């Protein structure tokens, strides 16, 4: 009984130390704010995602065509729009970069 209570008390103390650890480690931090993306950065992230998606789709299309999973006819009809999509995403991202105000 006593041993169990002592162990339970030790467990509770350990839990409190774990929870308090960030404050014990940094009693007076320079900054205590979690960095989050602002609206501009979210927009750029979405555009970068679209760009990566278009480039990955192009890469996969090439690989599928090489492996003869996709006929020449299908390849020709798909590759043009995909290239345009990738180019558009790259262009939009560039424009966004130019317009984006630098973080102070």
């Amino acid at each position, binding site marked *: *009984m006593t041993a*169990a*209570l002592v*162990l*339970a008390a030790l*467990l*509770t103390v*350990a*839990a409190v130390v*774990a*929870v*308090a*650890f*960030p*404050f014990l480690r*940094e009693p007076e*931090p320079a*900054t*205590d*704010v*979690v*960095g*989050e*993306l602002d609206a501009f*950065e*979210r927009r*750029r*992230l*979405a555009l*970068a*995602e*679209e760009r*990566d*998606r278009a480039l*990955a*789709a192009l890469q*996969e*299309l090439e*690989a*599928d065509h*090489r*492996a*003869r*999973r*996709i*006929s020449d*006819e*299908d390849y020709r*009809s*798909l590759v043009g*729009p995909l290239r345009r999509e990738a180019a558009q995403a790259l262009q939009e991202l560039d424009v966004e*970069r*130019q*317009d*984006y*105000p*630098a*973080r102070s």
Partner: protein
Amino acid sequence: MAELGRAALLVTLGLAAYALLVGAYAASTHRRRLAESARNALVASFFSTLVAAVVLAAAFVRDDFSLRYVTERSSKALPTPYKLSAFWGGQEGSLLLWLLVLTGYAALAVWLNRRRAADLVLWVTPVLGGITVAFAWLVTGVASPFATHAAPPDGLGLTPSLQNPYMATHPPALYLGYVGLAVPWAFAMGALLAGRTDERWIVATRRWTLVAWASLGIGQLLGAHWAYLEVGWGGYFAWDPVENAALMPWLAATAFLHSVMIQEKRGMLKVWNVVLVSLAFCLSIFGTFLTRSGIVNSIHSFTQSSIGPWFLAFIIVAVAVSVALIAWRLPLLRSRTKLESLVSREAAFMYNNLLLVALCLTVLWGVAWPILSEAVRGEAVVVGRPYYDFFLRVFGLPLLLLMGIGPLVAWRRASLRGLLRTFLGPSVFALMVGAVLLALGAGSSIPGLIAYTFSAFVIGAIAIEFWRGTTARRALSSESWPAAFASLIGRNRRRYGGYVVHFAIVLLAIGIAGSSAYDSVVEGRLAKGESLEVSGYTLTYARLVEREASNATEVRAKVLVNRGGADLGTLEAGKNAYSVEQQVSNEIGLRTDYLRAEDLFVIAEQVNDDGSVYFRVFVKPLVNLIWLAGLVFLGGSLIALWPDAREQRRLATRFAEAATPAGSAPPP
């Protein structure tokens, strides 16, 4: 040590409540140290739960019958491995295991993603904290495994059907699956709360979903094998409500794993994916509710208990939170891209999704209807096997075919000529297989014949995919065939791991079709020396033997097996009488013929006083492919979920690039 167990669970409850409340406050005010503190609380809750679990396990091993739970589930004569597995043999212990797995998953998920997806983890912590609070409350305030009483000299023992090696693997595997679905749901809700509806939450949780989904699949197959060997009714899946409860979240998670690819490749179906992940999680809680509340009669369910309303409240909260957050973030979830053609890979994935969800909801209706009927009209209605078998054929056979079609169709759109060329090989192969099987007499079951023909199509499609991929790799890199094959899989583990899993599902379909559509059964009462015949086998009842085992009296009927004049040995089937538990179990006789790919399965239904025995004998063709499918499924899942460092780097680069100020170069 019961005090230590109780205290440890109280600590878990306190830590989880802290993670929920302080975590939510920290996330909404962006307070970094407070958020880290909440995250630490969630991680620490795993260790305090582990202490409680160790205390309970030790109580079983030490025969500490001062714990009511140990008294009701164990005895001194119970072999030690079963004492350990008796941990989750009842309500309170299985809830503690649930909590242990949940806190383990939560601790790992927030710890591993604390840098990769810091802004998501900010909100994931209180969501996981909330789920943990619910389960910690159940084991502290409602159904504690540490309730004590005056210790009796011995315990009541463990139910005989649970005294089986599968007891050590089947429930933990299922729990890893059920509980694992909490992680993708928490990340989905965290993404909605944080407004991060991009690809990040999907990448952060894909492997967690795969682990949970694979565990749930393996857990169900282990349970099926257990039922086949131990329960002794001649089958492996009975559409029991609790079996269905594990099947439903698995089907929803399967749909999610497919639809998530459409979001990654095309940026579509963002709403649908959040809906599916919520459906999978809520169904996993519903499944636990079915098992724990005693609301349904099932071999798996525990007795009537007071925790049913708590679970029901939890399900309502989970559904309400999911619906409210999806509705709130709907503008962010809208996709810019649309489906270009109904003949494309994404369309095939969508058909697959519709069929999987339709099958899932059909099973849900079959489970819910008797409960609703009894609650509203006071009449117990039974939804039987024909209902489920019918819908399994209606939705399952097209799903099987789609497994072959999907990989062969191009993304975006495919021309008719391209399709004809791609489908020609697998179609010819499938039709040839179908024709040969028809000639061999497989036409006695039309659904069985269709299942085999579709299976051949899928196998053909998978073989062509591997062949083309390996040939293309060889052409690019001049590698040897094995090296090209290995590098093909290594460079695209998800795709080829997925094909291996598809192959496992085909094996499963062949095994189920063979053992259910083409099986034979004979039954009859035999006196010593008498015989019965089934599918070319002659079984002669030789004699009855009785012997004492460590915890049961075993009665066995010895049966001589003969086929075409050849002696194939002796089978034993009978009963075990457990003295401590005052229960009797069926012990089957089984002979597997790997050359003929079939099982001879003997049940001694009734042993009569005059020494005669009533036998039921099955011949089940191809049933072992079901168990083989489990191994292949595990292999494919491991390939698919193996970490991909390139993907993590790509996401990190993209994120850093998005946050880079104008004029500066993106990070390498």
